[in-house]
């Protein structure tokens, strides 16, 4: 038999075998048990298929990848329909349609036709090029870009610029300072201690200044200016290192999550 036929058939047989192994034959609700076994086995198989890419690209990986993309697209289309049209637009436009979709009618508001019209205009991109009407979708795109920019500018200025500068400038260089004697007698290296607080504040202030100096290109980076700039590079490198460490932590967490699923839920090796 052809290899291209044999491998999928063998895979299906192995899959069914694993589902049967996972079935609890003494369970009261057989249908529920079957669905659960199918769900967990499919999850286990798909996880292994995706992991197989680490060895090399292969048909199993491609199958899992295409399945993922297809399901994601279908899922987002349903979410888009229900959350945008069914729950937001239609309850303000048509009572009969709202009732047909099982949504409460929230009263007719004429300006809800505007987003509906803009949405329809966006779809003109899908019409054949010979109709020469696709350009009209740019109106919607322009609206999206302009409104997003408008939203972003004010929010970013306040939260990421003004508030950040204010927070940095208001950092006390000597927090909770009551005198050198008190400082020495209450010396504490814990996270909540005065020394660590003070050290942290100094690191932030020196780090911000040296980081800014590194990005100041109107003066040659030589002499004391160059040394501060060099410190700025170190600050940036430490920041990137910390971010990398966190990224590794995140990725390992995901790996642990998948392996726990394989060992606990699927194989039942750990309790």
């Amino acid at each position, binding site marked *: 038999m052809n290899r291209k036929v044999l491998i999928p058939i063998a895979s299906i047989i192995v899959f069914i075998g694993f589902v049967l192994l996972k079935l609890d034959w003494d369970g009261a609700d057989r249908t529920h048990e079957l669905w659960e076994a199918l769900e967990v086995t499919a999850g286990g198989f798909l996880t292994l298929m995706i992991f197989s890419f680490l060895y090399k690209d292969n048909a199993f990986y491609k199958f899992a990848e295409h399945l993922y993309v297809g399901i994601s697209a279908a899922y987002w289309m349903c979410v888009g329909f229900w959350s945008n049209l069914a729950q937001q637009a239609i309850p303000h436009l048509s009572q009969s349609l709202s009732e047909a979709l099982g949504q409460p009618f929230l009263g007719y508001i004429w300006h809800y036709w505007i987003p509906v019209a803009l949405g329809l205009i966006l779809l003109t991109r899908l019409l054949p090029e010979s109709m020469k009407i696709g350009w009209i979708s740019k109106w919607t795109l322009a609206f999206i870009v302009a409104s997003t920019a408008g939203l972003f500018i004010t*929010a970013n200025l306040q939260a990421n610029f003004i508030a950040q500068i204010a927070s940095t400038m208001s950092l006390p260089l000597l927090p909770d300072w009551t005198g050198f004697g008190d400082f020495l007698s209450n010396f504490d290296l814990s996270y909540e201690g005065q020394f660590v607080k003070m050290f942290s504040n100094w690191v932030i202030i020196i780090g911000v200044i040296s980081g800014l100096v590194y990005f100041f290109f109107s003066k040659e980076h030589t002499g004391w200016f160059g040394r501060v700039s060099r410190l700025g590079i170190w600050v940036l490198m430490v920041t990137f290192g910390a971010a990398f460490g966190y990224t*590794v932590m995140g990725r390992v967490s995901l790996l642990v999550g998948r392996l726990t699923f394989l060992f606990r839920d699927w194989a039942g090796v750990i309790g």
Partner: protein
Amino acid sequence: MLLAVTQGLGPVFSWFFWITFAAGLGWLLWMSITGREVERRIIFLFMGLTVSGAVLAGIILPVQETTVVRNVFDTIEGLSEGDRVLLSLDYDPSGAPELEPMAKAVSQHCFEKKLKICYMTLWGTGGAMITDVIALAKVDFPDLVYGDDYCNVGYRAGNEAVLRVIASDFRKTFPTDVSGTSLDSLSVMNGILNCADFKYIVAIGSGRPGIKEWVEYVVEPSGALMGSGAAAVSAPQLYPYYPQQMNGMMGGSKGASEYEKMLRRVYPKFKSSRAQATEIMGPQTVAHVFLMLLIVFANISYFLAKKRKGASA
């Protein structure tokens, strides 16, 4: 210490695994010293074996509590019975291993304090995450009543625009809950007109829209009190918002495991509940140690190669 905690799988397996693993590391070191290249698939295999071994062995390591996480815990601990908390779960299944433990622990804490939770999400895939978290929390609180103890307003499309609106008028974007019931008929939402009416907001997210957007579009304009739980990848970018714009943050699995520890310390009844993040931290530490060893080996190889090149020139 590792051997002591691998008793669950039997001493023979433990000894065999760790001796084989140590031999493998020795081989990697030898390859580095002799300047030979190691194929990336072997590194993947080692990482897989390291994490698998640690998961199978069930390694649990002690967790150190930090102020940034304790602030979230203390804020919830300081709320009174009946106070309303908004819990936004802005992540998808790929972020669940890190973020679901946080959402579960915060939910358990709120329900134990008899606080009322309103769940929402800015992610289309977040609806299923909310369902999962509620199901997990209900294991310890089977008598929770929908509408009285918690509610789920689900997802609304619009990203930042949703936050911009709910900062001033919650019902304008969420007139109904996820099943189409008017918010006016849910006692959880009585008197809630905007985000600032919630005593505390906990945004748990892994990307955009997420915590950063909550700060920009809700905390800044409305002055609402907010804590957060971030995926490890995005956590470093969010620390600048602490403590002025958000009063605490759980960063990745480490932050979640700290919260679990605090919850178990204050409420021993949760000791029987599964501590998902704490379970992750053991394999996490082993993986980090392995990665650091690889970096050391790679540097040894690099400097030896440089030395050999210098000698031959």
